[in-house]
């Protein structure tokens, strides 16, 4: 109960999408592109599309993201203004193949 009302009061905040939008696709447990260059020091929106028939957990310690993306769906993330550098991400359920990095320049 508390959870629902609490979530409801935040719901209005969350539709704000910031900055430029970038897209990653996940197919056969691989990211395309595996290296994505984005602008440094600017907030951005990252959309991750999971085209596989299985769920995946998109995770990046450095970007501080941890989220399950169900099969054949997508999720969108607000990326904070990043310092120039490389930010690794993985699909935790298929870590051997599903890996890549954001390059902030």
């Amino acid at each position, binding site marked *: 109960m*508390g*959870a*629902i009302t*609490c*979530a409801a009061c*935040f*719901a209005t*905040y*969350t*539709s*704000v999408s910031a900055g430029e939008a970038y897209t990653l696709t996940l197919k056969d447990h691989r990211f395309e592109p595996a290296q994505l260059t984005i602008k440094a020091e600017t907030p951005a929106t990252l959309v991750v599309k999971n085209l*596989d*028939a*299985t*769920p*995946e*957990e998109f995770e990046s*310690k*450095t970007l*501080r*993201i*941890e*989220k*399950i*993306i*169900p*099969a054949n*769906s997508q*999720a*969108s*993330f*607000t990326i*904070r203004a990043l310092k120039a550098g490389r930010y690794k991400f993985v699909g*935790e*359920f298929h*870590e*051997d193949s599903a890996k890549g990095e954001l390059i902030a320049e």
Partner: protein
Amino acid sequence: MLGALIIVFREAIEAGLIVGIVLAVTRGLVHARTYIFVGVGAGAGGALLVALFADALSKSFSGNGQELFNASILALAVIMLAWHNIWMSRHGRELSQQLSTVGRAVASGERTLLALAGVVGLAILREGSEVALFLYGVIASGETGYDVFFGGLLGLALGAAVSFATFYGLIKIPPRSLFVVTSWLITFLAAGLAAQSAAFLQQAGVITMLTETLWDTSWALSDKTILGRVLHTLIGYSDQPSLLQGLVYLLTLILIYTATKFTAVRPKLEPRLSP
């Protein structure tokens, strides 16, 4: 198979530790086991439901349903743990003085058991849904085969083993100190969960400030390793926390500590018959 085992075990550690701690905390209370097992069962059932409706959940609240759900669950667990600790500081001493189990049960009331069973349920709900989705993915893809699935189940079994190890480790501590140890454990556990909750609110974009990274110790101890994960649960260790996470962590520690101190009743010096 080993990969699947590690993935599932990593998810199961947190719930495993929490179950073990709660079992030790409630040892000797009448019906404690029943409460906890109902908590485990409800958590597991809830986890399956969440996994089943994962798609709907992640699409809700403009795509932030999952984050808000996790943040709320964590916050709820923090409140229950804090409440338990404060309650125990009032009544804990009486409890440890009463040796008969009947007396303890009457004095303890069932509410604190309910809160702790709730904490167990929430822990399993949160981690369990991820495990369920992973195992579902393994079966649905059909490409990896059943040894991966069994690896996952083995990871779950290891998670349960963590519960038992924690429980038997804790009950080795003499009852007098056990109370002090567990109330500290619960305070740190709650602070760590509060910080995680804050992280989910930041990920959802609900809180956009204080995102600077406080420190980066991933080179020394990544919180994806087993040890990192254990410390993550026990003391809230994070290898790259945000400033907000650090603040929420400290604030929760201070709040629970002071609330516990202020509500604690001094042990009554009851006249005792000398032996």
